[in-house]
């Protein structure tokens, strides 16, 4: 019997650490080789880690939300044979969970390993306390949840009339309150504990519409949400944004789009506005190389790209993800539409590869049918521009002294003022607008 230490491999180019998203095993589990162990997240891709060996899990390092450095031990297995841990060797790079002895994986670690007959493994246990823990991150505050009998959806919660009445008054559904009494009976103390942990205030939608509500729900910002938060923070902190909005008469383009959708071949995708906007961008961008660029402000260099890789901001069940349509300049509207659908679908299904999620040089953010009147989009750092088409609405406009009804769309955009001057941006948007208003020019040299 030996101990096999599983170290977090380098899961993405140049990533120094990855976030633990979800464990699929727990201490004591016997796992087979290639069985799913843990989901870790880097950049915007979630990677499933599988077991490198068959064995029994004796310790897990890190909780969901913790950052694990590449190369740190995240799982230890008890395996047949020698394992890979050198007797007496300290585990590499302690992970945040290690120093808090209260965390659940830690306690069974000692308990399950102490009686090991193998002397070598035993020595390692003794050496463990000698490792220097890294400072505990502040967010690492999860207390062990109170033990309570789990309640199936159909099971009536057990509570006295007084407890039920109090829950009613507080608008708390007892179904969700852990009961620590026999058979899961909910006491006043359980109700207090539930309220204290922010469980209160789930007032029934049917109760008085003006009833005051109390209670705070604490949601841990982890996983994709933390990525988004960090990214947005970075973007706004680094980039002096400015927004520019102009209106575009989409009447002709909408007529063309309707025609194309009506006459398209069966294997062609239905076209929305995006492929046309992408087409307009790739036609205009060569004249504005400073806009199709990355600004590496640490190095003080703007990388201007010949290729136009367009990020497509996509809402997924977990949050915002930006998959990328590569080489938009080499795609016609049909191909663009297909590729948008493909990468956005992959992102929504959580199947997008790292390659599909990186490398954009400019980003389009559209709220689709929601549209909105104006948006002030946040630039996808290190890019320098982002374009946000708004809703197409029939509006009265003046043409040749007559009020006519036209299909109008606002085109919102943000630019990095450090490297894109306002005049250039305005000119750029004017040209995009001209192309969209005269859709034939999208396809003319």
């Amino acid at each position, binding site marked *: 019997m030996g101990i096999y230490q599983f170290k977090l491999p380098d899961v993405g180019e140049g990533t120094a650490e990855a976030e633990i998203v979800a464990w699929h095993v727990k201490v004591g589990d016997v796992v087979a080789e290639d069985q799913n162990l843990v989901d870790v997240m880097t950049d915007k891709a979630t990677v499933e880690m599988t077991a490198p060996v068959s064995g029994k899990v004796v310790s897990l390092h890190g909780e969901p939300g913790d950052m694990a450095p590449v190369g740190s031990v995240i799982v230890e297995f008890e395996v047949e044979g020698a394992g890979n841990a050198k007797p007496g060797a300290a585990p590499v790079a302690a992970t945040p969970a290690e120093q808090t002895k209260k965390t659940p994986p830690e306690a069974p670690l000692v308990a399950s390993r102490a009686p090991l007959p193998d002397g070598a493994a035993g020595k390692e246990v003794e050496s463990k306390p000698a490792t220097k823990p890294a400072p505990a991150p502040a967010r690492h505050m999860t207390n062990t949840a109170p033990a309570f009998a789990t309640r199936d959806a159909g099971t009536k919660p057990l509570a*006295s009339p007084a407890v039920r009445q109090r829950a009613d008054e507080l608008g708390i559904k007892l179904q969700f309150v852990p009961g620590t009494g026999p058979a899961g*009976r909910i006491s006043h103390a359980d109700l207090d504990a539930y309220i204290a942990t922010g469980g209160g205030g789930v007032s029934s939608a049917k109760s008085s519409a003006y009833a005051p509500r109390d209670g705070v729900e604490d949601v841990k910002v982890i996983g994709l949400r933390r990525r988004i938060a960090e990214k947005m923070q970075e973007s706004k902190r680094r980039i002096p944004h400015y927004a520019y909005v102009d209106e575009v008469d989409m009447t002709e383009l909408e007529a063309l789009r309707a025609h194309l959708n009506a006459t398209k071949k069966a294997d062609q995708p239905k076209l929305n506005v995006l492929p046309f906007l992408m087409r307009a961008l790739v036609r205009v961008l060569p004249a504005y190389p400073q806009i199709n660029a990355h600004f590496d402000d640490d190095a003080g260099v703007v990388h201007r790209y010949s290729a136009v890789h367009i990020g497509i901001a996509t809402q997924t069940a977990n949050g915002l993800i930006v998959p990328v349509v590569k080489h938009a300049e080499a795609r016609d509207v049909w191909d663009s539409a297909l590729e948008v659908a493909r990468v956005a679908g992959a992102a929504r299904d959580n199947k997008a590869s790292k390659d599909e999620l990186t490398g954009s040089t400019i980003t389009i953010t559209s709220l689709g049918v929601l549209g909105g009147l104006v948006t002030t989009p946040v630039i996808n750092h290190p890019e320098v521009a982002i374009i946000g088409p708004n809703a197409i609405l029939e509006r009265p406009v003046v043409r040749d002294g007559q009020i006519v009804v036209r299909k109008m769309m606002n085109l919102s955009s943000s630019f990095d003022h450090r490297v894109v001057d306002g005049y250039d941006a305005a000119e750029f948007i004017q040209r995009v607008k001209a192309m969209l208003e005269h859709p034939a020019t999208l396809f003319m040299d």
Partner: protein
Amino acid sequence: MPEHIRTKVLVIGGGPGGYVAAIRCGQLGLETTLVEADRLGGTCLIRGCIPSKAMIHVAGHFETMTKAAAKGGKHGISLSAPPKVDFAETVKWKETVVDKLNGGVTALLKRAKVRVIAGWAKFQDGKTCSVETPEGAVTITGEHVILATGSLPVELPFLKFGGNVVSSTEALTLAEVPKKLVVVGAGYIGLELGIAFRKLGSEVTVVEALDRILPLYDAQLTAPVAKWLEKNGVTVHLGAKAKGLSKDGNALVVETKDGKSAEFPAGKILVTVGRKPNTEGWGLENMAVDMDGRFVKVDDRCRTSMRDVWAIGDLVGEPMLEHKAATQGEMVAEIIAGRKHRFHPASIPAVCFTEPEIVSAGLLPQDVSNETQEVITAVFPFSANGRALSMEAGDDGGFVRILAAKADHRILGIQAVGAHVSELSGEFSHALEMGALLEDVAGTIHVHPTLGEAYHEAALRALGHAIHI
């Protein structure tokens, strides 16, 4: 121009749902008006639970004395002549009980400053009704309206009430004890009254369309009642359908289980085939509230589909029981006053004042499927209970039965059948409401000698260590 009363709460019906709601509204400082066409107290006080219990009490006395008058007497007591009953006097005594309670309700409403309007309400819209009172017509508009109109006995179209065909209401005010009584419907009302009249000397025949008596309960629970009926000469025809009166009106025509037609001579025919919500004749159709079958549809706060119109009691569904109506009435009053409340009792216990009595709280064996939940069932017979034996309540086949979840011992249902067991109902429901486990009941000291010990022993037995069996 009729007087127009505007009130915070308008309660329609002075039964146990309505008057409790009104009293609680008054206590909470809400200006409340209650409309009742009959005497205050409703079915329960005036023509249901209370008068029938008075009647059952008298019948019990009469039965005891009849036994004492029989040859050899009873327990050493003997009477030289059989007792006689002047039923008119019995009814009069029963009325004094009813009057006392009716007066009590009137006083309580007065103390709660509830304005009582005597008359029949007729709704014009969801919030306004007109009432013809002895003093003239009034129009009443309530910010909140609580509908508590109760229920009425169901009439069979081929056996209409009138003459010798009576409902439970008339059965409680008969001029004399009928020589031959046929009861149509072996639910709890029919059996309670049928048994009482049997004790008072009537020849009683029971006709039930289903294949068992008290069909809400299981055969184990109703067996002692069936045994009593048999022992006391009450003929029960199961699977038999009443067809109508015979030509001379002195017998009930019945199609028996084997399809034959039979005539049962009857001085009175008591039809107790159920009760229906009282939804007609007071303008419910003008209120635009949604219905749920024949009942007014309400949610778990007794709200109808119309904002601030509430409905409670028999009007909103089964079980049609006083204590359900009263609980709902109290709840609605508190909700109107701003408290948050829901109607979610752990059990609505029910009692049959048959001979012997039946009480049921929570789930019955047929309510739990062993596929979803493993259940322990334990029975303790009153024949092993000292107190029961000491008052002749040990040999009627009675018992206490407990159902509990095998996994965590939480008590799911408690039933009992036996003399005087109705008084155990509170303890049973209390255990269910408090979420008691078998160990909770087993760990509660019960007074010796009482019937409640049988409950304690049933819990012990469920845990595998009953002492006295």
